[in-house]
């Protein structure tokens, strides 16, 4: 969930609504003359607020601005889980960002590599380089699409149905899957249109997105509901992990369930399903397999 980095009122409460990741924003929601103030607010929010199990990410300013370097200098020492880079266009940018972060981590006594990155693709050029960007650093966990800026780049209007972004979304998903990173769908700005939001979220899930950005706590339960694994999927996943366990104990090489081979992709999918189910509180802690 996006939280403007210059709004102390929203920052104080943001972690209670069940968002998986809080995304403090230093970029678009912060006016130029307040960039310095927002940096301090985010720095101290990280230091003094209790986020318990919620991950915290910071959207820094784009690398085409003079602000991003000061952003990471101030924020990395407070150990956010992730940095979100907007307007990613080339793999060189990612490599540079990676280097700068590493320098700061070292200087601050943080394990190098501790801070993860996600990027937002907001232009056609960025999309063309999506795979290279996604594989440019081991820090990189996810790529996302920035719908508003992308449609601006395309020179078209953003619509509720979203057909103008169909290709971009599709290509982004392909790049993400090939690079084995998560792929996050864009925000839906009409907070009162819960039906439209649900439709867009369902479409995103169907296309292969693994998450969605939100701008209001009301949108969180909808995302969780759309992305939650079904009861059948959970039961299937549990069975698969059990079968793997048994096979390991017996030392057998080939594993099958219901006459089908259980190979690596199936195991990985089962693990993902159970992880998601656990996060959403749908199952008790599952024994590691």
């Amino acid at each position, binding site marked *: 969930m996006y939280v403007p980095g210059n709004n*102390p009122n929203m920052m104080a409460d943001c972690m209670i609504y069940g968002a998986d990741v809080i995304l403090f924003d230093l970029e678009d929601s912060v006016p130029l003359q307040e960039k310095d103030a927002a940096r301090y607010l985010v720095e*101290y929010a990280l230091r003094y607020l209790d986020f318990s199990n919620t991950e915290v990410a910071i959207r820094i300013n784009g690398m085409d601005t003079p602000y991003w370097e000061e952003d990471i200098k101030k924020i990395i020492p407070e150990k956010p889980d992730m940095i979100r880079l907007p307007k990613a266009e080339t793999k060189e940018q990612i490599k540079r960002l990676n280097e700068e972060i590493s320098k700061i981590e070292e200087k601050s006594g943080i394990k190098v590599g501790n801070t993860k990155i996600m990027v937002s693709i907001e232009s056609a050029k960025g999309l063309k380089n999506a795979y290279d960007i996604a594989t440019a650093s081991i820090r990189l966990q996810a790529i996302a699409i920035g719908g508003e800026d992308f449609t601006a780049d395309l020179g078209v209007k953003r619509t509720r149905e979203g057909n103008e972004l169909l290709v971009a979304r599709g290509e982004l998903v392909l790049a993400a899957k090939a690079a084995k990173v998560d792929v996050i769908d864009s925000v839906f700005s009409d907070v009162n249109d819960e039906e439209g939001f649900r439709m867009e979220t369902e479409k995103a899930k169907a296309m292969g997105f693994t998450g969605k950005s939100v701008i209001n706590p009301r949108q969180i339960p909808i995302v969780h509901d759309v992305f939650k694994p079904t009861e059948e999927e959970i039961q299937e996943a549990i069975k698969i992990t059990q079968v793997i366990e048994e096979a390991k104990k017996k030392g057998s090489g080939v594993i099958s369930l219901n006459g089908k081979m259980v190979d690596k992709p199936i195991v990985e999918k089962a693990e993902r399903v159970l992880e998601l189910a656990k996060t959403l509180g749908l199952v008790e802690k599952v024994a590691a397999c």
Partner: protein
Amino acid sequence: MISSKAGTEEKNDCIIELEALEKGEGIEIEIESPIKKQFGRHIKETILEVLKERCISNVKVRVTDRKALDFSIRARLETAIDRLGGERLEA
């Protein structure tokens, strides 16, 4: 007169205004807050702490508080110090 300002009038925020003073004039703190009785002392201590960390000994601080939490007060003060010229104020 060198002065600076940071923060907003929004709920749970505060406005911090700084005015650089001459060497030897010391630190003056003025706090306006609807919860002054409960947190006035704490706000003053927080401000003194930050000023000490930033090595500032001669400044007038005016706080217009709207029930800001600690992290906001610190952030606003640090921002105001930077905007005033930061290290130029060292005693």
